[in-house]
């Protein structure tokens, strides 16, 4: 098979078709259409395409109709010899925007399977690949995983061409480079990296290409495959590669000097390098006014912190450090815990597990019954557990708040926070605040050592890039965002003119 694919086309049409048929044996979706050239009936032509992938309207109207019927109308009376045929067809016969020539059988086969239509001309060892792809695809819809109140509502779809076009519509500059790769022995998935020449760090672009070229795998079905194959620290619970389904977010990332990786067949796009703070930011942060955004971000950071340590803190205080609570609060908690038969650790741990089950069920459930189950889960389970005296009200409050907090920021980061939460709960359940502190320290040490494509994961906080702190917890107004982030690029790049701060017109003039 491999041998066949490495061959080149012959001049004999019959032979070529036979060769392709051998390679595409038992592929019932491949269609072979043989016909004769209208100008000279001696010349046989063959169209080969995959049913469902090629745009049938284009194939029949722009290729077959043109070649089989309309060519004589264009140049009446002219006689085309076999030797001239290919050149003539290319120049006058095809009404297709994009054509390509090849003489390699492998390339022909790939073109057919990718949705292109291949035209073979008798007597020539060159095939014409017509870019007439057209298949059923999902329309561009609202982003499901990253909803926003203000900002673009479109999200990527499964087709890489549509996705890159969405990006191109945001950045209409020749500096936006989109380079294509093909990864996957069987899937031959189109992968593209996008970056802005002159903004992105060349080293990072080179590194991304290097890591992508390293991949030898049978198939790539989602960006997750690539993420795991190219990330810096595969054992870390933290994601070192960000992903998004919003074109505006990708555009913003590229403008800050990052590199995007598009994969055909998925609406998610990877962006590298990624910093921890990115996961706590939303695209909307840049669309809302900066005062509001800064306030919201403070809340989001606090929520992220709470989602990591709140249950463990509760366990540690309730089972080891009663003196940390004010007397009145302690008595109230003590009153609730009075009926509970289990230690606080077991209680919180199991309620957290219950919450995770509910969350997982909420995702997997068929839509129509989702509502019912969440009511059953949240109300019935929580309320009954308290009424029955299995858990204390305070525990429910802590677990519920923690659960809600973990949804205030990027989903993939919240997964790692959630995992670490269980680790911290075990530590604080056995060693109290000491264990919690040790656990948090361990996480901090780990974070300090992480890198994403050469960029320290905690930057711009550690190591501190002071000019980048304008966009961490607080967001500077747009007229003050003078430079691109240094931590991503390695150097500052000016992004706007100075003195853009608007002022009211002088009065009296």
């Amino acid at each position, binding site marked *: 098979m491999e041998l066949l694919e490495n061959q080149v086309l012959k001049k004999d049409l019959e032979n070529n078709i036979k060769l392709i048929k051998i390679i595409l044996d038992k592929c019932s979706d491949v269609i072979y259409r043989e016909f004769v050239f209208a100008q000279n009936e001696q010349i046989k032509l063959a169209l080969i395409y995959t049913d469902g992938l090629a745009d049938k309207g284009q194939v029949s109207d722009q290729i077959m109709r043109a070649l089989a019927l309309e060519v004589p109308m264009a140049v009446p009376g002219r006689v085309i010899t076999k030797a001239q045929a290919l050149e003539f067809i290319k120049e006058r016969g095809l009404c297709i925007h994009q054509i390509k020539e090849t003489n390699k059988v492998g390339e022909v086969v790939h073109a057919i399977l990718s949705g292109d239509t291949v035209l073979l001309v008798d007597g020539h060892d060159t095939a014409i690949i017509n870019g007439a792809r057209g298949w059923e695809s999902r329309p561009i819809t609202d982003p499901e995983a990253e909803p926003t109140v203000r900002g673009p509502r479109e999200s990527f779809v499964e087709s890489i061409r549509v996705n890159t076009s969405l990006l191109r519509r945001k950045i209409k500059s020749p500096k936006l480079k989109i380079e294509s790769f093909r990864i996957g022995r069987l899937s031959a998935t189109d992968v593209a990296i996008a970056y802005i020449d002159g903004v992105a760090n060349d080293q990072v672009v080179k590194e991304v290409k290097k890591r992508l070229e390293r991949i030898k795998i049978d198939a790539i079905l989602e960006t997750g495959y690539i993420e795991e194959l190219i990330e810096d620290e595969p054992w870390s619970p933290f994601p070192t590669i960000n992903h998004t389904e919003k074109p505006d977010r990708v555009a913003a990332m590229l403008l800050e000097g990052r590199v995007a990786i598009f994969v055909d067949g998925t609406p998610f796009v990877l962006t590298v390098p990624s910093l921890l703070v990115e996961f706590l930011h939303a695209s909307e942060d840049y669309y809302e006014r900066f005062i509001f955004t800064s306030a919201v971000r403070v809340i989001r950071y606090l929520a992220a912190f709470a989602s990591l340590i709140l249950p463990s803190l509760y366990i540690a205080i309730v089972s080891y450090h009663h003196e940390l609570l004010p007397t009145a609060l302690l008595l*109230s908690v003590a009153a609730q815990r009075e009926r509970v038969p289990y230690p606080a650790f077991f209680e919180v741990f199991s309620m957290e597990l219950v919450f995770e089950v509910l969350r997982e069920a909420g995702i997997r459930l068929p839509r129509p019954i989702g509502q019912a189950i969440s009511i059953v889960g949240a109300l019935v389970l929580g309320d009954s557990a308290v009424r029955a005296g299995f858990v204390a009200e305070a525990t429910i409050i802590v677990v519920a708040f923690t659960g809600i907090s973990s949804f205030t920021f990027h989903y993939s980061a919240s997964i790692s926070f959630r995992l670490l939460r269980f680790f911290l709960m075990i530590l604080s359940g056995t060693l109290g605040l000491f264990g919690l502190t040790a656990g948090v320290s361990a996480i901090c040490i780990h974070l300090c050592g992480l890198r994403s494509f050469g960029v320290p994961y905690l930057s711009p906080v550690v190591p501190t890039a002071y000019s980048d702190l304008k966009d961490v917890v607080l967001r500077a107004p747009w007229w003050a965002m003078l430079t691109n982030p240094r931590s991503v690029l390695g150097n500052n790049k000016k992004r706007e003119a100075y003195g853009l701060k608007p002022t009211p017109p002088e009065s009296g003039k």
Partner: protein
Amino acid sequence: MKKKIAPIIWMIIIATILSGCWSRKELNEVAIVLGTGIDLNKEGHIRLTVQVAVPTAFATGEEGKGGQKEAASMEVSADGATIEEAERHLAMKIPREIYWGHCVALIIGENMAKKGVRMITDFFERDREPRETMWVMVAKGTAEDFLKTSSILEKTSSQAVGLLTRMKTGYSVKLMDFTEMLAEDGIQPAVTGVRVINENHVTGESQHSGAENKRRVEISGTALFREDRLVGWLEADETRGLLWLKGEPVEGVITVPTPEEPNKMVSIKIKRGSTKIYAGHINDAPYFTVKIRVEGDMIEQQGRENLATPERMNALEEKMAYEIRKRVELALYRARNIYGVDVFGFGQVYHRRFKSEWRNIKDSWDDIFRQAKVDIQVEAHIREIGLLTRRPGTEK
């Protein structure tokens, strides 16, 4: 990398599993002590009384409302030669582990205080659970009786007395301040006094039947110590004088007669005040100048005269200063001349100023202090008298 990680993982596993939740105390396994009382029993042993919170009584919601009102606390007493021994005996009566971390008040019975408190405060300083910020007070009568008195507004007598102390109407002393006063030369300890009062004469309380409900706790004067023994008491008025002398932030009211109508009174709320004590010598004898500066707002006037004139204001301020000086002198007289203790810390002031002289006289300080001259200067100001300068019916 693998070699580095493996020992760390083992360390974590071993640390968490082998320690086995060491020192873990679930909330429903501890008896939360809210107040501690220490008395001297008839055999001369320590009688330790703890007020332990009954958590279910603090529950809110359904279970708190219905049915009989549960007692919020229970008081348990045990005897022993030391506090720790008494605590061991208590453990036989309380099925949970005694937890001192939230003890608000340490109440010392009068008899115990007379015998000496150093032997009992040690436990509360040394043990790691009790807080050094707990209020220390001396009960007139027994501490046990005091703790057993219930409070209407607060759930327990300890909380009630803790909140009362926090109002700083009396001379509130924390354990750490008390031990500091005990340890230092040139000052003798003084702590707030508390007592149980019967309010049987109060009418209209029939809904709280039974004698128990008619008993209340209240702050009452100040207990004066020589070294660690109780020697006497200051009354409420004299306590104010003590507070002025100590420079404690005084929140209170001074009531003085109006300049023109002596039978009508004016109340002045104190806003801020400061006290400075200067030490000196007159004929080789210690001599002290106390400078007190007070600012206040007039908040009530019974009479009808217009006070917004410089003369009347000055007269009023003078009366205010006089009133304060009177109280300070009263407190000084009681403590110094009757009980002969320097609870004000004059000795410390002297020590700071005259280091070498202090060394010679520190052992006989109480006697020397008795003879020392103390000059009290009060400077009082009234800052605001409100907008009602001309009340209806005020003289024109």
